[in-house]
């Protein structure tokens, strides 16, 4: 590992403000966004930057999230860099146009601050919103810390715009826990970010009048399927590109990123799989268990879409028992969406360890170390005695 090229400046910021700084440093041509708790501070802070002349972005205060994404689509098709931010119901309201963005292959960047979906009305964190958009053709990264929220925000742009990818990209940070949680992070110098993101030169654009182009035509039974296959291929290529950009970002900052992070995973017998800020809490439990002689480990997934099946299967294949933690429910399904992916990856790669799925943390329900200790205890039990009872369990729920 070489020493980083630039020294960041340690600051105290919450996740929302850290992301607002990242957007300012990336200086997109257009930001179209509608405020919604717990994302509001991103929009609030960024519109201050615009009003103060600290960034020359065209800020469009739209009337809804549907309009926000639509404006981003227009701006991106016109050849500009477009970004937005949203949460919960806001993301759900964008649903229809998310598919237009990905189907048109527009490298829009979205900052999602995870919030549950109503009803009952709830403003707190779970992953129902971004999981609801998991089939919409967007690359999805998840942040563990405020530092990662900042770092992923910047890398998302490079991933989205890579010529082999050209897919809209979102990164998701846990609402309130990271969004409103003040943490220490290192901000890069403005010019380092500017250099890292470079200048966007789209191959096609609506404003290139010398090379006129039609965006968003109708395709029926003749070509629609072929274009969907192309999106799937772009996702496959993103599996190669995301770690390359993570490596380049690491050379710059000293913070390297891949598709996943193994924490004391290599020689672990019992592993959990999780997304987002909960991964940090699990790390503290893994440390405690290791001190007690339990071979515990964690697979923190950074990239959920595309799902790095081979990487995950190879990292988990030799484990005795695995628990997958889902911060969302897929009603009527056999399991949560993360579990579904992990199990499919294991099965198709010829592995069949014992597995458990936990739904946890819905509507912001706090997840504490004692509950994670229970998960590892359950894993040790099923390894010894086989699976008894349902494979989908509820963690931190009053029974």
């Amino acid at each position, binding site marked *: 590992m070489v020493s980083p090229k630039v020294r960041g400046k340690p600051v105290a910021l919450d996740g929302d403000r850290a992301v607002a700084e990242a957007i300012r440093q990336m200086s997109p041509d257009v930001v179209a966004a509608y405020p919604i708790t717990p994302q509001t501070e991103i929009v609030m802070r960024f519109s201050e930057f615009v009003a103060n002349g600290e960034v020359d972005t065209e800020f469009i205060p739209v009337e809804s999230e549907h309009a926000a994404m639509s404006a981003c689509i227009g701006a991106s098709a016109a050849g500009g860099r477009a970004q937005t931010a949203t949460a919960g119901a806001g993301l759900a309201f964008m649903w229809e146009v998310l598919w237009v963005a990905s*189907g*048109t*292959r*527009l490298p829009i960047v979205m900052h999602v601050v995870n919030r549950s979906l109503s009803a009952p009305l709830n403003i707190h964190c779970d992953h129902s919103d971004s999981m609801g958009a998991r089939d919409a053709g967007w690359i999805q990264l998840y942040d563990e810390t405020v530092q990662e929220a900042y770092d992923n925000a910047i890398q998302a742009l490079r991933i989205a715009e890579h010529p082999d990818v*050209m897919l809209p990209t979102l990164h998701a940070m846990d609402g309130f826990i990271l969004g409103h949680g003040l943490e220490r992070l290192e901000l890069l110098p403005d010019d380092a970010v500017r250099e890292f993101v470079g200048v966007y030169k789209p191959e*096609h654009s609506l404003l290139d009048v010398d*090379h*006129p*182009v*039609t*965006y*968003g*035509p109708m*395709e029926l039974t*003749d*070509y629609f*399927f*072929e*274009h969907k*296959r*192309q999106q799937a*291929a*772009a996702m496959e290529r993103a599996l190669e590109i995301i770690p390359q950009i993570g490596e380049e970002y690491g050379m710059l900052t000293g913070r390297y990123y891949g598709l996943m992070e193994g924490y004391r995973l290599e020689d672990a017998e019992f592993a959990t799989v999780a997304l987002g800020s909960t991964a940090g809490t699990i790390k503290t439990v893994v440390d405690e268990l290791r001190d007690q002689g339990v071979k515990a480990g964690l697979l923190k997934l950074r990239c959920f879409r595309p799902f790095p099946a081979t990487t995950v299967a190879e990292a988990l294949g030799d484990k005795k028992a695995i628990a997958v933690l889902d911060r969302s429910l897929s009603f009527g399904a056999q399991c949560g969406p993360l579990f579904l992916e992990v199990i499919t990856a294991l099965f198709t790669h010829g592995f069949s360890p014992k597995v458990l799925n936990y739904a946890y943390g819905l509507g912001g329900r706090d997840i504490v170390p004692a509950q994670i200790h229970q998960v590892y205890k359950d894993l040790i039990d099923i390894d010894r005695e086989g699976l008894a009872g349902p494979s989908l369990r509820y963690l931190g729920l009053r029974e």
Partner: protein
Amino acid sequence: MTLKTWREILAGGLITDAGNTEEYETGSWRSHRSIIDMDKCTHCMICWVYCPDGSIMVSDGKVIGIDLAHCKGCGICVHECPRKAISRVEEALAKEGVQ
């Protein structure tokens, strides 16, 4: 026409060849054909303005006929012609040469 594979087409469904509607012959959609009576026509160009498919053929400032490869037979020209110089007949009859 042989359709291309997913590896051969431009991403995102973009169309980069401007004016390519000419390649798409919509004349087969037509159930009625417009016929211009050249004796009545004053070449006022009202039909040319209104035609949604650009199917009124013009040469040297004069209307010379209808582009049957693209005319969908909507009948707007018939309705708009101030001299009632355009009439409308069933396509099947027009094909048999009945006027």
